[in-house]
């Protein structure tokens, strides 16, 4: 059914249909509408789950670990400082191989305090062992939750997943979203079948000490599982397309790339703006295209190399900065294209909610054509003096 919905409420509705048994979250702007809606559903018995009002994000994800280890399907949502506070717990979740799904409503990190959008928060957790999926619009944001649970709980994968969508730009924006019925979701996402769980009759321990003789192998196994996840995400995405008409089998998605000379690479809501800008530039005869990265972890390097094989230059739009180096996506795209001879230019854009317009996209294309890149774009002039 097509409905005109706020992004947060569309995501909350999708989470409800995933039948989480335990939800544990702490309020933080701009995530609040999601968890308020879920608290309401639990209180109104439209969602049969425990909702835990914890005292911090650290407690929120810790409670999720307990609930997941006990054998429940678990959900949380956070952003920015909340995710930063969860840093320690995030590594534990992946290390214990618990298939928790968490929505990240992307927001900038302090200091200075900002409640506005960029992707620094989830990017900073890229090394934690979680899968990371980035949504371009609210339809994709809802759909990726079904997909995330399905892949995360796959016994060949058993890793947590972050579904990332841009704070305010998507979370607080109303868009038409096709919502699914419970029967449809049940047909796509089977009931949670834990691979292992806490059971007094058959005791196991999660998160025990590993000596130097064994620790590395645990990390290796997580890395291998993430590698396997590429194929599982593709398969689950294809299955989703078969059942609901929206195919998510591609980890990266091209737009007007076939004959493009300059290709943008972007993640999240920015992709919509870039596509519009591309249409305008194409009308003026400029051969530009976009490669949208939907799945950032695991990083689909070979897919990116294949998709960009025919372009002359690449302009990566990074809504994050690995301070002291470059944008995180730009660095990995450079790695993916290493040896190809294709020039890759990185642009740090949109930090802390700085708007990026279609005219900016055109200006960045011009910079890339001149061979100017690896820079912040759109800074206030006074800092450049």
């Amino acid at each position, binding site marked *: 059914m097509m409905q005109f919905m706020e992004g947060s409420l569309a995501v909350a509705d999708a989470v409800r249909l995933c039948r989480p048994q335990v939800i544990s979250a702490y*309020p933080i*702007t701009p995530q609040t509408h999601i968890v*308020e809606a879920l*608290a309401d559903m639990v209180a*109104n018995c439209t969602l049969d789950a425990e909702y835990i*009002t914890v*005292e*911090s994000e650290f407690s929120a994800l810790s409670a999720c670990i307990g609930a997941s280890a006990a054998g429940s399907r678990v959900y949380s949502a956070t952003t920015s400082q909340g995710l930063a506070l969860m840093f320690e717990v995030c590594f534990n979740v992946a290390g214990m191989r618990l298939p928790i799904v968490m929505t990240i409503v992307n927001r900038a990190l302090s*200091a200075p*305090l900002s409640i506005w959008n960029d992707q620094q928060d989830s990017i900073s957790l890229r090394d934690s062992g979680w899968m990371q999926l980035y949504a371009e619009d609210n339809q994709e944001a809802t759909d990726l939750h079904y997909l995330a649970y399905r892949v995360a709980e796959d016994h060949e994968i058993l890793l947590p997943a972050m579904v990332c969508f841009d704070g305010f730009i998507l979370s607080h924006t109303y868009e038409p979203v096709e919502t699914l019925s419970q029967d449809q979701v049940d047909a796509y996402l089977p009931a949670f079948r834990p691979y292992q769980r806490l059971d007094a009759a058959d005791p196991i321990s999660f998160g025990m000490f590993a000596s130097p003789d064994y620790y590395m192998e645990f990390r290796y196994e997580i890395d291998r599982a993430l590698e396997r996840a590429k194929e599982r995400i593709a398969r689950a995405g294809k299955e989703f397309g078969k059942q609901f008409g929206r195919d998510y089998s591609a980890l990266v998605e091209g737009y007007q790339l076939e004959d493009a000379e300059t290709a943008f690479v972007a993640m999240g809501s920015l992709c919509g703006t870039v596509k519009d800008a591309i249409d305008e530039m194409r009308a003026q005869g400029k051969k530009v295209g976009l490669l949208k990265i939907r799945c950032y972890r695991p990083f689909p390097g070979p897919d990116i190399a294949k998709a960009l094989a025919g372009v002359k230059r690449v302009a990566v739009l990074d809504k994050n900065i690995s301070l002291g180096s470059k944008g995180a996506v730009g660095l990995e795209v450079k790695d993916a294209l290493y040896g190809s001879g294709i020039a890759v230019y990185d642009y740090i854009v949109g930090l802390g909610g700085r708007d990026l317009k279609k005219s900016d996209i055109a200006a960045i294309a011009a910079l890339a054509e001149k061979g100017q890149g690896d820079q912040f774009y759109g800074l206030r002039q006074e800092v450049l003096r």
Partner: protein
Amino acid sequence: MTFRDWYRVDRLPTIYCAGCGNGTVINCALHAVDAMAWKQEETVFVSGIGCSSRAPGYIATDSLHTTHGRALAFATGVKLARPDLHVVIFTGDGDLAAIGGNHFIHACRRNVDMTVICMNNWIYGMTGGQGSPTTPVGALSTTTPYGSAEGVFDISELAVAAGANHVARWTSYHVKELTRAIQTGLETPGFSLIEALVQCPTGYGRRNRLREVSDMIEFLKTHAMLLSRYRKMVAEGKPVPADIFTVGEFVRRNRPAMGVPP
């Protein structure tokens, strides 16, 4: 100097909602600070995250606006590095008693020489009215749509139990008493907590049958019971109404304290 000189006038008006009690508490605090005759360059305000924590932004001294719940940890660092500075913290129930609960009890335990002013509005105000550790049982919030079922923290009693040198609770209605209590806190060596119950018509009142600003202030006025009276009633075995809260000075003592200038 007057309390007005402590304001960054160019930052006014505040971002607070119409009818919010936080401005009253800031006014009381600045009256008390002004009465101490401290210099602005020797005074530091520290805060965490939340409506209360916007306060230092309106005050004309150096300040640290830190992360959610951590104000006391940051303030401890300031005070121990520079015992000569006066350190005052603005915080709220969510900041102090929820996410910062651990720092709170340990700052009381260490009895670090600082004054904490906690604006308790029974709710997470800035994020839109979610239930906090002081949301009364049965009260409505955006995460407890049919009433909070969890027990509450008594912030002042917690500070007494954890070892603070001076603890008092008043409300945004009791401006004279609140100002005097804050001044006592500023004068007392060691950790001082002043809990100020404040009206939050936007996040709390309108969901809890206290729709008008005056309704909430009236509630604060009529439901506050002097601690001395409360203790007398308990001692005499008289029934105490369940919906009152106590106000007054909970403790003033002289435990060994950290960060007291020699």
